[in-house]
Each structure stands twice: as C-alpha cells, then as structure tokens.
C-alpha cells in the first residue's frame, strides 16, 4: 500500500442497542458498510464529522464515535491502521470458529424450558 497516498477520514461508532460497528454515511445515517461511509478530506469536514458523532452519541444512538483514517483506493476505502481494517471487516478467523452462525442465517430457538 502506498504510504504517500493522501488519507481521508470517516466517522465510526458502535450502535448502542446491539454494539454493531457502523459508519456515518452521506445521508447522515449509520451504515454497517464501510463503503457507504461519508468521507471527510479537510479539517473542517473532519470537525463536522466529529460534531455529528458527539451529537448522535448524546442522542443515545451510538457509543464511542471515533474518526478513522482511510485511504481511497481503486478497491474502495481501506483503513490505514490494521486494527481498523479488522474492525471494519470482522474477525479474520471466523471460518475457523466452531459452530459460528452468521446473523442472517441464525435460527431462533424458543425460550429454554426450565430443566
């Protein structure tokens, strides 16, 4: 990855109710998809993102808003820090987690009977 490419910023947080990682999108909504994130390229734009993060945190929509540096590459937005790449994409070892069921396919089982 070219270290000389300029970086941009996106705003991330976790949804309060379920903890899912989200990014502020161009409509001002919180999306689970990094590719949809609104990109800030100037200090003023970054400040606007930070203000929006603080505002939505105080409105109890999200927790721990933070600015994430990204590079805009031909394959999309890529976070600069490795940690943020893992955070955006999910654990790198999910294929090896025994019994892992991705959320869309999870079956709901009824409330446990008292044994």
């Amino acid at each position, binding site marked *: 990855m070219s270290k000389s490419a300029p970086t941009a910023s996106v705003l991330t947080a976790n949804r309060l109710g379920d903890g*899912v990682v989200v990014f502020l999108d161009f409509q001002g909504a919180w999306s689970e998809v990094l590719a949809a994130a609104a990109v800030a390229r100037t200090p003023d734009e970054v400040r606007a993102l930070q203000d929006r993060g603080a505002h939505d945190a105080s409105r*109890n929509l999200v927790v721990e808003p933070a600015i994430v540096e990204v590079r805009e590459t031909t394959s999309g937005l890529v976070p*600069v820090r490795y940690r943020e790449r893992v955070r955006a994409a999910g654990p790198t070892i999910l294929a090896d987690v025994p019994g892992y069921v991705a959320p869309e396919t999870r079956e709901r089982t009824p*409330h446990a009977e008292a044994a």
Partner: protein
Amino acid sequence: MYRYDEFDAEFVRQRVAQFRDQVNRRLSGELSEDEFKPLRLMNGVYLQLHAYMLRIAIPYGTLNSRQMRRLAHIARHYDRGTGHFTTRQNLQFNWPKLVDIPDILEELAEVEMHAIQTSGNCIRNVTADHFAGAADEVADPRPYAEIIRQWSSLHPEFSFLPRKFKVAVTGASRDRAAIQVHDIGLRLKRLGGGLGFAVYVGGGQGRTPILAKLVRDNLPEADLLSYLEAVLRIYNLHGRRDNKYKARIKILVHEIGAAAFAAQVEEEWQRIRDSVLKLPEAEIRRIQAYFAPPAFDTRPHKTSLDASDRDFERWVTRNTCTHRQPGYAIVTISLKPIGGIPGDASAAQMDAVADIAERYSHDEVRVSHEQNLVLPHVRIEHRREVYAALKAARLAEGNAGLATDIIACPGLDYCALANARSIPIAQRLSERLAARQHEIGELKIKISGCINACGHHHVGHIGILGVEKRGEEHYQLLLGGSAAEDSALAAITGPGFGPEGIVDAVEKVVDRYLELRADAAETFLAAYARLGAAPFKEALYAAA
C-alpha cells in the same frame, strides 16, 4: 457443588432486575455512557472491537450439565452459536446485543448462573484448581472460593476499587491455579489441628509482571474473610488512582514494601478479626458439605488398556490423570484442535460435553485457566466411551500440556484493547508443531495480543506478546516462565518478529531444545533452566 438457597436465588433475581433497569435507563438516555460503563462492566458487559461481549461467571470453574446446556442455548439463541472459555475460568460470548442482555441474565439466573463482577474495578471471579476435589490436595479449595464469592458480591465498600481485583485458591502442592500471579493467592495448608492459608498478595501480569509476596504464612480458616477485608480496605484507601497502569495492588505492595504492607493489613485485621466476619466452623462445614465427593462407584476397576488404538492410548497418557479415588480418572477435554482456536466451543460441543459429564462424570465439568475443560470424576473403564463421545464432537485431541495446547487471548480479532492478533499465531504454531508434539513433550505456549497479558504470556514456558510496530503486527518472544508452584516470569529474548517470523522463531527455539536436551525426560522448562537463554538467543539471532 454449591446450590443456591432462597437468599442466593433472590439476590441474583434482584441483580438482574437492577441491571435491566440500568440498561433501560441507558437506552432512554437517563444514564450517559460514562455513567453506564462502570455499571455494565460490573455485570460483565464489554464493548469490544465488533460488538458487545458478555463474560459469564463460572465460579471456581465448576458447572453441571444443566448449566452447560443453558450456555449452549444462549449461544444459539442470543449469540452466533459459539463461546470462548477464558484464562479465568469464565465463558465469553462475542456477539450479544445490549438489549438482549437482561433476558440472557434472566435465563442464566434460572440455572444459578450470572455475570456479576466479571469485569470492572471490583473483586472478580475467584478461580481455583480445576482438579479440586479429584486430585491429591490438603482440602478442596472451592468451599473457600464460594465463601469469598458470596462475601465479595456487591460488597458496598469494594465496588469501586482503584482497579480490578483477582483472587485464586489452591489446595494442592501442585499449583494449578497460578496463585502467584494474582492480586491475592491463597494456598490451603494444615494449621495446628485444622486448616489455614498461606496468603500471597500483589501478584499480577500486564505491563509490570510481578510475583506475589507471601504476606501471611499462617492464616486460620476462620479468619479468611476478616483478613481479606483488611487487605481490600488497605488497598482501597491507598491504592493509586492517578494512573491506570499503577493502580493494581501489586504496585502498592511494591511501592511501600511487602513488610510495611503486611504490617498495615495486620493492624486493621487485628481490629476486625473478631467481628461478624469471623467464620463459624459450622458455616465452613456447611459450605464444604456442598462439595462433598459424589457417590463414587467403589468397585475395583478392570484395567484393560487395549493398545490397538494408538490415538486412544496417547489420549489416555496425555489427557487423563490419576484420581484420588481408586478406580477413577480425571479427564481433560482439549479445546485446542490442531490448527483451531484455543478455548472456543460450539453450542453443539457444549451440549456434547454436558451429556458426557452427566453420564460419565457425576454431572460435573470444570473450566481450567488453560482454556480447556475437565471431567473430574470418570470411572477408568468408561474412558473409552468418553473418548469416543469426545471424538465424535471433535474434542478428543490428546494434547494436554503439549506444544499444541496453546493458550491465546482473543487478541485483535475481537478485543478493542489488542495491538495484534493472537489466534492466527496459535493456529500456525499448532499446525507447525503438531507432528512433533509428542517428541517435544510438555511445553506451555501462551500468547497475548497486548500488554494486558490476558493470554498469560509472562508465565508461559514460551510466551508471545503481540505489539503494534509502525502500524503493523509485531511479536516479542519470551522464554522460561511458569505459572505453577515454581512460578517464574519469562524473559524476553531480544528483537521481535513479524507474524511469519514469530512462528519460525518458536520452531527454532524448539529445534535448539531438542538438540540440547539431556534426554527425552528433560522438559523444555528444565532444559532452559539448565542451559540459560544464551543457546536459544543464538539460535534466534545469530547470522545464518
């Protein structure tokens, strides 16, 4: 094992109701995140890299089949079908929703489980020897762990300590509870005509690893709670709160000196030792009665080790230990499949373990601090059925204590505190060393993804610490640590390695050990003690 009485059951019910109220007030905004965070931590709710994480308490690592099945149900219904057993004998779920957690806690309360004080600056899960009640010991440490658990639950004075507080208890001369790297470590011993404790204070890992100091060698069992209360009070009054990395009791003991610390505790303890906290003998016996041995089958056993199944034979050698009761064995269930994720279990595997425990282990399972499970009471002639059942569930790896029985924290794949991933390192090492693991013999490899040392890397025979170097993952290698009664802190070898390099580095260390060991009976740790670090550093860093 302990059974809740009405008091205990009502306590947990009320705590669930209280937490439900706290969650609702957070969702409505009546509580800010800053106000809510310590409260949710006191109920084991973290915010991790991808989601919330719920840490469920398994007191002194003991549970029955009904409880294990409930954990499997929660994994299926509220999480993503899987859970992780930790180095403090707890269970973690990585994907619960905050809005669901009160319901999860309610379902746990139905089977006498909870998530109380599994995080936060309070007294955490009291851990104990995972072979308690089955191995040779002075006495079962778990009744004392249970007494401490109760006394420490929502303790009004000690719920906002300078930092977290971890207690471990052992009753055996072989320390399987790592007591010397705990804030308080307790070793049961005979005292006069009865029982007492050697009390160690101020051990811990993390940024400044320190072995605990023996602060009182002879504490009568009746004085257990009053002495602990004195220790906690001195800590709560004088522990540092200005710097998160200097806030553990180990720093206080280090800064004022063990003797001065012991004197302060002694002064306060003498004042309160005859207060209500003095444990009546009848109460100790009452709690001990819950941990009485099960109704063992006392018929003589038939040993007929059929040597035709090499894997079974190896599994018996590595994963079963002598039980104090003739005719029985202690069985270790490895949660370390070759190339797998240490400590993880699927809901189906949890159910399988529950079935096996109910049928073959007097309905009891243990969680070890090495991220494995234990069936404490298995009749010797049932070993083959148990092995077959475990094998069907992919839980029959015969690698207990071997190089592929690796401890790894969740690391950067899950944890918001981590600097590097630990799980893939564990997987690659496991794959690399599997073919030679029996030849290598006992070797405890422990991997942490950050300085907080949840992987216990400071006390690994081989320890690995993940750090961040110029935005990339980097790993330090440490050698010669031990969590057992010969406690020692591992020493760093030199410059660190990248993700590929660290796997090669460990292999070089192993190669050098095999080359230089006196014989196959000399373990890595013994060889390291004899040879020192030099030959290993040379293998790692000398120009090829």
